[in-house]
């Protein structure tokens, strides 16, 4: 009976041989991410967190960017950005947070609407988002709070369900995953908005599920093969769950793909980040979470066979 399988059934890849390489690659990527976040180029915060205005307009004919620019510049607003998206009639106007408090945002929206009515009659304003400084600061706090709470909740949950070595392994891996996603936002200068927080939470959820599946199998095999060295046992568990891991990444990937293709401006970024997150979350289960478990658990989880493992392992 033919079945579509990405991994042959009797695959026995010795993943733990690559543990050092995996950790090093991850450490390098996370370091680069932190550099991208803290040093250069930094996160491109969207209006949810920075305040400002986004207006989507549709002009009656193909948009005349030169004229639009001069109309908007005549208003003397701060940080005007124009961007074409979708069809040639669709223009996105981005304004930075206008100086002068919350009311200044509203004044700017009114001014832009009036100027468009005058110079480009028939232009539709299809969307307006105007966020003042008070709200954006609060949304930022809330976003951080959500991420922090979620991380804490995961730690507690894993702690209850598994031995502490698993909990530390899962949460450390999760933190590394998050740094890479944030780094991706910074490196590609994607708008970091509330949807970014949602994306990170979703990836966290996906990633932790993946770790739970591998860990579950490790724990089961610990009971099953009392004499097997931890290293072999982890390799076995990863291989046994490899088909599931790949199948699930595939289904999530397939579900997210149409969003990236037809989801429009805002959803495309979200979908792309999710796709990246799936890759990061899946590989980190194998190359980060498992090696951490191996380092932490050698003595506690397999006291008797640690010595034998050392002997059976030729010097590398």
């Amino acid at each position, binding site marked *: 009976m033919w079945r579509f399988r990405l991994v042959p059934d009797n695959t026995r890849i010795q993943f733990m041989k690559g543990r050092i390489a995996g950790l090093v690659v991850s450490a390098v990527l996370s370091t680069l991410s932190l550099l991208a976040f803290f040093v250069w180029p930094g996160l491109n915060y969207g209006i949810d967190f920075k305040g400002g205005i986004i207006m989507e307009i549709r002009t009656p004919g193909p948009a005349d960017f030169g004229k639009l620019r001069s109309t908007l510049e005549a208003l003397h607003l701060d940080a005007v950005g124009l961007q074409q998206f979708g069809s040639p009639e669709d223009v996105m106007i981005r304004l930075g947070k206008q100086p002068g408090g919350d009311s200044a945002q509203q004044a700017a929206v009114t001014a832009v609407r009036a100027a468009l009515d005058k110079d480009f009659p028939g232009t539709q304003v299809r969307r307006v988002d105007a966020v003042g400084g008070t709200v954006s600061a609060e949304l930022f706090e809330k976003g951080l709070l959500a991420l922090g709470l979620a991380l804490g909740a995961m730690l507690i949950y894993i702690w209850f369900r598994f031995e502490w070595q698993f909990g530390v392994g899962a949460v450390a891996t999760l933190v590394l995953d998050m740094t890479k996603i944030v780094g991706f936002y910074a490196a590609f200068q994607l708008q970091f908005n509330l949807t970014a927080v949602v994306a990170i939470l979703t990836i*966290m959820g996906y990633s932790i599920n993946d770790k739970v599946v591998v860990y579950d199998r490790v724990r089961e095999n610990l009971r099953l093969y009392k004499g097997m060295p931890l290293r072999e046992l982890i390799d076995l568990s990863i291989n046994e769950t490899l088909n599931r891991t790949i199948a699930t990444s595939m289904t999530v990937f397939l579900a997210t793909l149409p969003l990236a293709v037809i989801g429009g401006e805002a959803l495309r970024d979200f979908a792309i980040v999710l796709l990246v997150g799936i890759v990061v979350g899946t590989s980190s289960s194998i190359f980060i979470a498992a090696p951490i478990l191996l380092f932490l658990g050698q003595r506690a989880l397999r006291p008797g066979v640690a010595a034998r493992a050392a002997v059976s392992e030729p010097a590398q």
Partner: protein
Amino acid sequence: MHYTRWQIAMILTVCAIGILFTLPNALSPAEIASWPLQRQIHLGLDLKGGTYLLMEVDLKSVEHDRLESSLDTVRNKLRTLDVGYTNLEVRDDAIRLQLRDPGQAAEIGRQLRDALSDDPNSSDYAVTTTPDGSIALNLTEASLRLRATQAIDQSIEIVRRRIDETGVIEPQIARQGPDRILIQLPGIQDPQRLKELLGKTAKMTFRLLSPEPIPANGRPLPGTDIFPAENETALDGKPRLYLVRKRIEVDGADLTDARAGLNQQTGEWVVNFAFNGQGARRFGQVTEQNVGKPFAIVLDNKVISAPVIREPITGGRGQISGRFTAASANDLAILLRAGALPAPLKIIEERSVGPDLGADSIRAGIYACVIGMLLVMGFMVLAYGLFGGFAALALVINLALILGALSLLQATLTLPGIVGILLTIGMSVDANVLINERIREETKKGRTPLGAMQVGFSRAMGTILDANLTTLIKMMILFFVATGPVQGFAVTISIGILTSMFTAIVFVRMLMATWLRHTRPKMLPV
């Protein structure tokens, strides 16, 4: 792996109920009238089109107004007590003054505080004195809180009246946090006019003009204010300025009605108004005593018009003509009818979406869901054959259950909500993947089909529960921390997880068990 007829009937009934509740969403408004289940999914503003405004009540100005209005009482009390003082003013959130005789400070302070409250046991004010004779009276925490609550309740009421007057259908107005009002206006694409209506405090006063010319230095004379005209320009092109007496002759709060209309003689748009008894009496007195003099109709520190009083107006009715257009006369009438806000409101967040953009989003969302679902279903069949087909069928049922639950709860579906459904589709088959992989492994170990399926389900269950619980916890956090459309994401994923536990496990298990009983295969087709 055995299901009785009853169990099967119950499982199928749940699926059928899900589909029944989903169906009304596909019906047109005309068809739905004759349908027994009429609950439909509410679309969020980002899909339906509309405006979301978050407004903040300026509580500082409530406090300041209260302090200013107490100033007269303090002045009168000091006069009756016959004490010497200097520098009586409102400064830094308190009424402050300096006594000539510092020794009396404590006693005078106490008397002033009592004079400012009706109930001697619970004063609105707290008093602080210093040995050098300065007194500060500030509002207590409790009284500030009370006043803030009153101001917000009253603001909500007035905002509601103003919005109702404009004929917006189903506006939602709710208090949010200590000093905010959340307004949702479905179907309003250009909220400009509403924003203007809501942005005005609409404090109207009738005052006399000061006969003196405006001082050259631009500073008002004592007892007067300099206000610009609303619709009148001076020679230099700037708004004309008026020197208006501070004393309020009649307050706009005494109006009972205001309507826009056409003046028969001039053909101009005007606002006709009527006073209540007290207002009519005051207005009659003032106009009688000041015939031939100009007075000013002031709205939010701007002079709308400054006519000369030709004759006493005693009937309690009058007309404001201020170079209005039909729209501006109508708006002013609405503002006057709805009443003044207790404090200025300012918009701190606006999100508006046009109806056609919303329709575009729905279309893109539906396409993405359908394509995503077909891809996932195709993959499952390719990877797991018949059992993958069962999982694919479960996906369809799951979608129906999610939509049915959303209809039943009349929850609001937003664009992030649609994304949540899509992700649920992708992630909920994980349960089937886990089960099928396990069954496959157990089969290879040489178990019988029945044994492999039993072990497959029971072993995978723990992992599935772990995965779903952790996601559920995160979505709850997101729901309570987030606001607006993002909450919709948390809602659909949470519902999707719960329903997928039923479809991916109970429903699929039933399908497999029934199939097993009827075909009795030697090998499982996994």
